[in-house]
């Protein structure tokens, strides 16, 4: 019986949960590295912000800048499948939505689908959309809108799923 116990205890010791390997590496070492990773994230984010500003200044000066955004109207569960934009009869943007993107739009996120440059004056925006309201069948919609570009930057929001028109354009 004693031998049985000895074998059992021996094997039980072998079975005991593995002690954390990380304990062999110094905890301070791991923590220090983690902090350095956080620091570099901070640095890279700062570079990204600078780069965003530089890009905007260089590529889209405020007098010609036009940005087009896509949103899903509040309170609706409209699911876009794909969207295509034509600006003054020229194709400027095309996007196929992933599940995550649709979810983000339905939760109130807004997608910047296009940023470009336009002259002052009146312009034509053509929206082709494939999508559906929850529970309905998919359908294809084409709408045309005109908007006016002034001296400053122009923001145009395409709101999907609103009322009967499905596509609405809001100028800012």
């Amino acid at each position, binding site marked *: 019986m004693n031998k049985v116990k000895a074998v059992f205890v021996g094997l039980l010791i072998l079975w005991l949960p593995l002690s954390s*390997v990380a304990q062999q590496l110094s905890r301070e070492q*791991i923590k220090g590295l983690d902090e350095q*990773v*956080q620091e*570099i994230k901070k640095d890279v984010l700062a570079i990204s912000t600078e*780069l*965003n500003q530089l890009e905007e200044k260089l590529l889209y000066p405020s007098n010609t800048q036009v940005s087009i955004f896509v949103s899903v109207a509040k309170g609706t569960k409209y699911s876009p499948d794909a969207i295509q934009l034509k600006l003054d009869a020229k194709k400027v943007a095309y996007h196929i939505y992933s599940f995550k993107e649709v*979810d983000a739009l339905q939760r109130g996120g807004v997608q910047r689908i296009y940023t470009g440059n336009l002259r002052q004056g009146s312009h034509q925006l053509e929206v082709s959309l494939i999508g559906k309201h929850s529970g309905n069948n998919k359908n294809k919609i084409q709408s045309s809108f005109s908007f006016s570009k002034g001296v400053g930057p122009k923001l145009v*929001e395409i709101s999907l799923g609103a009322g009967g028109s499905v596509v609405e354009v809001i100028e800012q």
Partner: protein
Amino acid sequence: MLQKITTFIFVFLLSHQLFANDEISKSDLFFSEGLYYAYQENYFDAISRIDTELSQYYGLDEPELNSLHFYLNNAEFSIGDFELYYRMHNRAGRAIKAVLEGNVEDEVKNDAAYRLAKIYHQKQQPINALHTVERIKGKVPEKIKYDLELLKAQIFITNGRFVNAIQVLSQIENASAVAGYASYNLGIAYIGNKQIEKGIQQLDKAGQINSTDRAVLAIKDKANLVLGYKLMENKKPSLAKKYFERIRLDGPFSNRALLGAGWAAVATENYKQAIVPWTMLSKRNITNQSVQEVLLGLPFAYGKLEAYGRAAVLYGEALESYSLELKKLDNSIKLILEGKFLEAILREEFKKDKNWLINLRNLPDTPETHYLMQLLASNDFQEALKNYFDLDGLNIKITSWDGYLDSFTEMISSRKVYYTPIFPPMQERFRQLDSRMKIRLAQRKKIDDRLKKMLISPRPDFLAKVDERIALNNIALIEKKYARNNKEKYIDIKRRIERLKGVIQWDIKTEYQERFSEADKNLKALNVHVEKMDNDYKSFVRTRQSATQSFVGYDDNIRQIKNKIKFAQQKINTLMLQQGHILELMAVEELKKRRERIEALQIKARFSIAESYDRAVKKQQNIELEKTREKSVKDNKIKSDGDTP
């Protein structure tokens, strides 16, 4: 041990993400764009977008006119909140400030504080976790109500404050949202508080929970397993058996349960009872520790049942399996040291798949991840791995940025080549137009001022027509000519002059109102043209300015960013090497430990096989001796019978 147990809970706990900004109006499009990325769990882009907007906002002369002005608090808080999601929780960081001092609703702030405390807890910083959780006050979002209480209890346990943990857990023990977890942790807290009997009773309760939820069933199994081994330690194997038998045969703890059930039977000398669970276990995946162990246990039980031959065969098989596994482990260690492990975990297809860690084992030339499963599930390894992924993501981004900057530089030089020759003549032409415009605008202003004055003190002469002015001038000249001649013959001429003057002035004065209205109307009509001219002027000035700005003043900025990128890239590479080395070290250490264990089992197997052969031979000898003895007794009997007349 307690840390391990509480850590384990997190493997099963899937927290529901709640954004601070669910209800934020979409009026600020750029801020909402940041949310769009955040909702997709792309926190880097979310932070970067909102940061860009915030820095532009703070650079404005009149920020209160910007649409972001109304969402400033939310934007500032969101940045900190997303930094938490991006695991940037440095003490002095914005995330901490946002969570602890954020000027937002309690629910939003408490949700972020909950996540911060959870991060600290996972990163094994119990004091920080405790301080954070203690600052949660006011309304808590319904979604995290019970998770928060559970987290509080776990933090109390890791800080050794078992009484507090018992208080918290007793209140939520029966809540369905944390069913099993609270009950199990309560048992652990009682044991931690040296209330062993209560702890055992509590774990017994946790081990009988009814649920169809896989995570709850797993915690139920875990409770039974802990209890079973606790009773084995307390030398109550017959009681332990019941708890091992409660554990599902297809759950994550089934191997250890089968092993424990066998040992419980062996400890009560019911060797036959050990054979069934151990035989079942011995057919499972050999890389599992319990399976490796049972390869020794099973022949041991057969040996106790005096089936020495069978035992010797099984020991032989065990030795063979151990040798194979040792080779596999050596190969895995070699592959890890060659960098194959890091290569494998960075493959895109695996990052996209939630089960990528499990799928790793299907890859050729991939280290034997079965051996690493326990390590892979540990917090330390997970955190190190996430950091490695994040660094890889940063590296990819930053490398592409360097390319952008080269394109920008090229674009700027092309613009310079284009604009430099056309600027001087264009400037000259503009100067001329500018001075002409200024004169005309001054004239218009003069007329406007004059008309305004004439409203108060009418001046009909100002509104005389061109022919009337010419006529009046001619009359004045004639008048001057005859002014000094007072002869009779000129009197008639003078009278005629006066009459002519009178007619003209009559017209001017009687038509004054009409003429004034006409002048005012004409001036207003001019305003349209002046306004258009003014717009064209502004547009030209802006275009000229943007054309000038399109190639001037970027050199320093681009050089600085390039340097920053270079520096960051070097830092990222160094950190990736360090982080990767830590991951490899963790993996190799783990495999080495498993190797050592198998070697120990191998030695035991060698001794046991020899012993089994000895016993088998001895048994055989005994049988033969017995046979010989029996034969000799029989022979003697026959002989004695033959001798008898």
